[in-house]
């Protein structure tokens, strides 16, 4: 986890080769030494709450791992996702709209043809009626 601000909230130890960090569900971070001294779990000595912990490493669950990302990277990733969604949705909207417009035009020309045919039929019937 390459975040520059990570440190043990209890003893303030900074990252080094052998140090391991843990995060609690109360939002506090502690090193393996302090966790070994039971300073984070089962009770967090910072906020006095009962706490469960998870190790902060590349296997940390997705919904916790996101707290350690660079926020700018997260923003850019979000914008790219949003752009992809908008592109997908508008492409489909436009295609469907074009199809519906074509359908309407088809129906309109059919309707016009039908009313022309109806007018022709009415004229022929009128002629027949007057000649008989």
């Amino acid at each position: 986890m390459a975040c520059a601000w990570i440190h043990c909230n209890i003893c303030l130890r900074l990252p080094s080769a052998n140090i391991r960090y843990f995060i609690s569900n109360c939002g506090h971070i502690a090193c393996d030494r302090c966790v070994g001294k039971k300073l984070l779990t089962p009770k967090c000595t910072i906020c006095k709450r009962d706490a469960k912990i998870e190790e902060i490493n590349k296997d940390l669950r997705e919904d916790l791992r996101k707290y350690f990302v660079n926020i700018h990277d997260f923003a850019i990733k979000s914008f790219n996702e949003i752009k992809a969604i908008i592109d997908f949705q508008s492409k489909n909207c436009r295609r469907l709209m074009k199809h519906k417009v074509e359908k309407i035009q088809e129906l309109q020309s059919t309707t016009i043809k039908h009313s022309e045919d109806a007018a022709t039929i009415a004229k022929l019937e009128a002629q027949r009626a007057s000649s008989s």
Partner: protein
Amino acid sequence: MSWVHCNKCFAEPNENGVKGTFFLTSCSHISCQKCYESSRNVCHTCKKQNIKVLRIDSSLNKQYRQYFVDISRVIASKMEEMGKIRKFQDIQIQNLVKGTLKFQDVVKKSQEMLKKYEIEHKKLKKENQELLVALKKR
């Protein structure tokens, strides 16, 4: 979402006579059940081979489900996530700064004490030498 339609036959979900689920292909096309069954591994819209499909229903995973949701909801949820992340990181950074200031304070106090001891040490050394000289004279 009312824009969802089969990219091949334009069938829409919930339309009269349209049965089955719709599918999202790995090449980003949408297919109704009938058109999917008639072309299977090949995309009927772009002809790509060996495509994979996902059902467009509640089983769709979070990442792809976003594509079928109102975009303003997606934006709102991303903003909420970013807010939470930022708040957490701000608190951690503040804590780190606080700790650093404390350390600086401790270092300063230690340096002051060290100076005091150095002065004391010099004094005692001088006293010691004077006493030794006085002893030798006796």
